[in-house]
């Protein structure tokens, strides 16, 4: 069983989406020990003992959104929302390594995520500007 199936089917954490199931779309992205991974490529058994953060767990305990989430809201980087959890978690990991990315770096950050609504311009904007919401 894949980590993705455990999250969605057993734990009812449906914020994590399934698109392709083969590592190509990024909709299933979660943080495993702080690193963005495709949960459709990770065996649940293999994730045992790791800290897994899904989109449900990204905001702080009092419900305040993470700076990356704030940036996505402010910049209208969301259309239907299907790709959004994966985009935000991919960006979260990347921004931890490169906090003030150039536009090219921001594109690289989300290069593993497809947006079927094609809203990339706003998403890239949000990733570039996210540090301002810290």
């Amino acid at each position: 069983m894949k980590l993705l199936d455990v999250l969605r089917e057993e734990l009812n954490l449906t914020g994590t989406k399934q698109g392709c199931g083969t590592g190509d779309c990024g909709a299933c992205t979660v943080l495993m020990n702080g690193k963005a991974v495709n949960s459709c490529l990770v065996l649940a058994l293999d994730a045992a003992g790791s800290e897994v953060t899904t989109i449900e767990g990204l905001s702080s305990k009092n419900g305040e959104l993470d700076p990356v989430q704030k940036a996505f809201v402010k910049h209208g980087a969301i259309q239907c929302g299907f790709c959004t959890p994966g985009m935000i978690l991919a960006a979260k990991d990347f921004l931890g390594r490169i906090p003030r990315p150039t536009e090219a770096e921001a594109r690289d950050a989300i290069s593993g995520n497809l947006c079927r609504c094609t809203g990339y311009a706003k998403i890239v904007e949000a990733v570039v500007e996210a540090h301002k919401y810290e």
Partner: protein
Amino acid sequence: MRHFEFHQPRTLKEASNLLGRLGPGAMVYAGGTDIIPRTRLKRLHPDHLVNIKRIPGLSGVQRKGNTLTIGALTTFNDIIFSDVVNSNLPILAEVARTIASHQVRNLATIGGNLCNAAPSADSAPILIALGAALSVCSPRGKRRVLLEDFFKGPGRPNLKRGEIVTHVLLKKPRPTVGCAYMKHKIRQSLEIAITGVAVALDFAGGECRDARVIVGACAPTPVRARQAESLLKGSALGAQDLAAAADAVRKEISPIDDVRGSAEYRREMTALCLKRAAEIAVRRCGK
């Protein structure tokens, strides 16, 4: 998904003994980024997966003197963000950036990329160009194999049952050596190479002292283009020399027609990629 048993040995010895005992239905499991999608697509039917990620000491990049050691479990993102790589052999980070996507690179290991033995494996051409060797461990002991001799065919690495690749070993090239990798693809990321050409040139005093040209995705295994190499060697690496090498490489590969490109297209793009890679490599010599 198919049922299989998942084993999590803690030592190399335990892992290779297990693999030997479980027989041909057992596979090493590293990042899983090749195994999982291929199992899902029913192209692979493992009975046992032996996870080697609980074994200590197989991850990270170290430098001792002029030797760089890369643990088989080192992920491509580990390579991209490694200080040792960026200050000693930045070409490895550059190649890693052409692979898959940020998320996949957090999982995909260099050992898995090589042992999967796909003709298009992006890490292979540059590592062969740099003369890399693999350290392999089995119940019988340790051996070393040149990466150049490691690929026997698509999906067929030079490994016997129970053998596990533990490290990639390579020498830091001399300052007169410049390297480049040109991966031809349509999309910027998440793209398998249509052709991929790695070039390493040793250029000093206006003369090319040594040249390595390795082509991926254009034959059952990565190909060392020896004729192109011999045309570059001893030359001044002028435009005509590069053109002659590019012309030669067309005949040294045996590409197939597939969804990503026809054989003819691959030959043309390989020639062009060789020229471009060589131009970049020359500029990097002595830097």
